[in-house]
């Protein structure tokens, strides 16, 4: 069968080729190059470029929340949890988005994490925040965002190949970058996310948080409370549900994962001295200004 296909292609080429001009052949060559380029793995510097563009666009969607102490605190949790991830070599760094009515977070392939103030205000203790950050870290450490970039680049390669034949222009890196960065931005910030990857991020996020010393129940507690608030109609902060899988199913899956993979032990709260001199849970202390 393969031989027949090959012979058919050769026969077709032998008929078409003599009637082609040199320019035609160059155009087809460029198109094939662009098509093949879509299947070449994304290079390190390309991934850096894409991540930078996507990050700048996410940051451009919101105002930045300026609280140096909170920023440092959230970053230190991300660094601690990230140290126990599959990719401890990544530089995990967090930026705070001023969106008090939105519980949401975004991650890029190289470890930039954006969290909304609505999410931080909804957190009740540090293990919950560690669970949420673990989930975001897992998206980077398990290569979910890198795969999204690679998929979009494949599509961009094919689109350019079609465009080349029609318009006879050479592929430009800037065009590819724009196309891929925009499509990946849509995939991670606007479109519903891949359920299998979300589930994996939940499980691995709990592994990382647990390995860092936090209770894996932090993520379950956080999601359960959000679900209850949503169901009781008491919270308008449901943006995360637009892009994430069904919250009921997610809570069930996370609960099952804890039962299967972890010893169900509660975490001791991490207490610090509050402004009044009384002990206060550390996440509550740093997020007090948001509540």
């Amino acid at each position, binding site marked *: 069968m393969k031989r027949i296909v090959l012979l058919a292609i050769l026969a077709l080429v032998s008929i078409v080729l003599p009637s082609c001009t040199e320019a035609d052949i160059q155009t087809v060559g460029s198109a094939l190059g662009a098509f093949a380029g879509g299947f070449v793995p994304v290079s390190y510097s390309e991934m850096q470029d894409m991540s930078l563009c996507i990050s700048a*666009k996410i940051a451009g969607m919101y105002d*930045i929340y300026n609280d140096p102490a909170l920023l440092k605190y959230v970053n230190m949790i991300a*660094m601690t949890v990230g140290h126990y991830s599959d990719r401890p070599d990544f530089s995990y760094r967090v930026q705070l988005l001023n969106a008090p009515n939105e519980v949401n977070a975004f991650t890029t392939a190289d470890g930039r994490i954006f969290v909304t103030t609505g999410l931080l205000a909804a957190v009740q203790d540090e293990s919950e925040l560690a669970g949420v950050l673990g989930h975001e870290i897992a998206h980077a450490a398990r290569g979910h965002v890198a795969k999204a970039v690679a998929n979009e680049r494949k599509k961009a390669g094919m689109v350019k190949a079609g465009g080349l034949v029609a318009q006879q222009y050479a592929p430009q890196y800037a065009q590819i970058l724009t196309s891929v960065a925009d499509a990946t931005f849509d995939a991670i910030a606007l479109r519903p996310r891949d359920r299998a990857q979300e589930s994996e991020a939940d499980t691995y996020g709990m592994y990382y948080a647990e390995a860092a*010393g936090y209770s894996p129940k932090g993520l379950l507690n956080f999601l359960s409370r959000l679900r209850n608030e949503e169901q009781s109609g008491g919270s308008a902060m449901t943006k995360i549900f637009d892009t994430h899988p069904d919250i009921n199913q997610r809570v069930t899956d996370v609960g099952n994962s804890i039962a299967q993979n972890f010893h169900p032990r509660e975490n001791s709260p991490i207490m610090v001295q509050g402004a009044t001199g009384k002990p206060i849970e550390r996440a509550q202390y740093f997020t007090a200004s948001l509540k």
Partner: protein
Amino acid sequence: MKSKALLCAVCMVLLAISGGTIVAKIVYVNEDYVELRSDKGGWSEPILTLHKGAAMQVIEGEGDDSTSYYKVGVTCGNGAVIEGYIFKSLVVDEKPSEGAWSQQAGYYGSAEASQEGATASAKGLNAAVAGYLNANKVNYLAVQQMDSIPRQISGDEIRAFMKDGNIGIYQNRERRGGEK
């Protein structure tokens, strides 16, 4: 006395067999790219980005189960050796199959594979990225700010943070749930 003499003899035989040289272990990067760090821990400064198949000589950490890191030496093109730390699970003993970097370098002209490290963005933007940032509603300043955060938090500061919370390298293993 007798046992010391025996030990010396064994050592001499071993030295004779090995030709007087100690063969250092070589490991290879097994991910598309990995950051070599200045110290153990993801919070330490990234000093070099290594691509799949990159070789390095293990200086410390071999056979030491108490650490997840190797201290390694990487020989650069000019012969200089850069020392740093790399997470053990990101490297392998056998050279993995060739990465795609050599095939794709230069495919898009400006998209060359970088060996320069994670601070590439600090060197300035390439024209394509600059064009994208100019053409879209973005906040590049916020990204620069977040990229500088790891450099603003010292190793001592993150260790103190972990110690205060009994987490990370200071966690009480009893308190942890632990994997089944």
